[in-house]
């Protein structure tokens, strides 16, 4: 099975679960009073369509044959980098929601950590990362609150 087929299988299973949840949630919606259709049939019909088509995709991915061609080492996916960025981003958003720190220092910390990780904590890159992070953290806070008059998450 190719990587795309594996992803297609996983995604179609997820879609089937979503559709089942939609069908479950809409089962008790009463029929329309002043109009013939009501609120439930459209989401139910759409969910049924997605469910049926997802089953087709899932089955064809399950049955598919073939392997991916070998990839160049330089083009190998950087899954660890993506996972680390995702974890840091979720932690950053959670920290902003919990108001642990103000937007500017929190953003500076987040950017420094993420850029540092992506550049493998090389000293030269870390110096640049510190400057970029601080400029971005405090610069964005200033520009968005003073110039665009937009509220920022955090304190």
């Amino acid at each position, binding site marked *: 099975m190719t990587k795309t087929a594996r992803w297609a299988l996983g995604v179609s299973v997820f879609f089937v679960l979503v559709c089942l949840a939609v069908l479950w949630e809409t089962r008790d919606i009463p029929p329309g009073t002043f109009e013939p259709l009501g609120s439930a049939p459209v*989401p139910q019909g759409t969910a049924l369509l997605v469910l049926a088509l997802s089953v087709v995709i899932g089955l064809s991915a399950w049955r598919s044959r073939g392997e991916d061609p070998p990839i160049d080492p330089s083009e190998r996916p950087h899954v660890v980098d993506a996972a680390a960025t995702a974890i840091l981003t979720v932690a950053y958003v959670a920290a902003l929601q919990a108001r642990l720190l103000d937007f500017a220092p929190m953003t500076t910390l987040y950017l420094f950590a993420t*850029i540092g990780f992506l550049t493998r904590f090389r000293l030269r890159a870390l110096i640049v990362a510190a400057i970029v992070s601080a400029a*971005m953290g405090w610069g964005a806070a200033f520009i968005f609150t003073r110039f665009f008059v937009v509220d920022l998450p955090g304190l």
Partner: protein
Amino acid sequence: MIEGLFGALAHLMTPLPFLYVLIGTVSGIIVGAIPGLSGAMLIALTLPLTFYMQPVNAVILLIGMYVGSITGGLITATLLRMPGTPSNVVTTFDGHPMAMAGKPGRALGLGIAASFIGGLVSWVVLLFLAKPLSIWATRFGPFEYFTLILMAMVLIASVTQGSMVKGLVSGFLGMLVSMPGVDPSSGQPRLTWDWYVLNGGLKLLPVLIGIFAVSQVIGDIVTIGKRMERIETRVSGMLMSFKDWRDQAFNMLRSSLIGTWVGILPGIGASIGSIMAYTAARNMSRKPEEYGKGSEEGIVASEAANNATIGGALIPLIAMGIPGSVIDAILIGALMIHSITPGPTLFITNGDVVWAMIATALVANVVMFLAMMGSVRLVARIMYVPRTFLLPVILVFCIIGTFALDNTMFDVWVMLIFGVVGYAMERAGFPLGPFVIGFVLAPLMEEKLRSGLMMTAGSIEPIFTRPLSLTFLIIAILLLLTPFFRVWREGRARRRAATAAAAADEA
């Protein structure tokens, strides 16, 4: 028409609106030139900044970005063989070989000139077609609208690269995602799981930014190690001679018209337009063997067509409120954020906005041409900005933009979730365009169906008895059946070949 157009052009020539065109177009070029970033991402991220702007100025800025981003991708497609945006994929076939052959300036010059002409041709069509089409569309009843949107959804799924079934799932899933919240027709909460934050539904912006920007950032981080091959940009040979113009005139015009036509078809983006124009140019060329090895005609066809889709795609948006491409779906979102309802009455209710859109498509095209000719070397350097620095910064912008919509962290979580969903869908080969278009069009589609059924006391008969709705329905069914017909025909050809081979063996 003349009054509206010249009024908008005069407005565009005043300092602030002109600055918006300039900022929009140049930032579009820069973002388009950076591999991994796209116009859709830029426009989705800019939407929150337009909340406090006049709707006309917001539209000017966003259309400038649209024009710039489609053209900016030409630079990376030519110099790096990495299309800056999906619409520039075909440009890599000939642009990069020509650049490798020591003529990067020539390849860029041809691409820029073709982009300019493509934009100009489609603008003329936009100018003359949008208003008559909108007048015609005012005659649509709810069933016509319902079947038109249905046809658009099937069309989007059928022409999207890859599997049609995946395109359909993507579109229907987008529709499903737009349904949580209090049903506007009945006041009945649905798909809220008794969670009050879902009463207002999932907002367009977090979903858009998640699907387009966050998923792309994730994808870019996964491929962050990919090496870029540098080619020095030389400006020599960028200006086209009279002979070049003469030789390429027909190719430019044909490709521009193909691009415009593809743009008009709902939901089909610039990439399909450039593929179709490239194929047509190769089939009609006297030197088809040069295609893929640095053909001038190939570059011209691809770039003229992808820029022509911009004007074409604006036509259904302005005339009917149906997005002609993914970016147009985001533009519809921008109009709705500014309390403007897209549709055939837009010319009457918000004529200033419509004419600003049309005029900006022209002015941004001119600005794009001048900016690209003047600063291509500078922009070519920007594309080497290390992605390790750029991508986390983009994530911060995504969070700021989404939070600014309603000052709620719930939207930020929605954006992150849809970023992951979008990335998974892309890895699995599901196109994201139909998802966004389904998300934008579903409320309109449901509203039209339900109001139609109220008018007919629950009967769907008018769908089959009204000529237009029946036509749209038949087209939708034919489009749905096309892949099955293709499979049947291929199977028959295989069987015939096998029979012929067996007969030859026996003989």
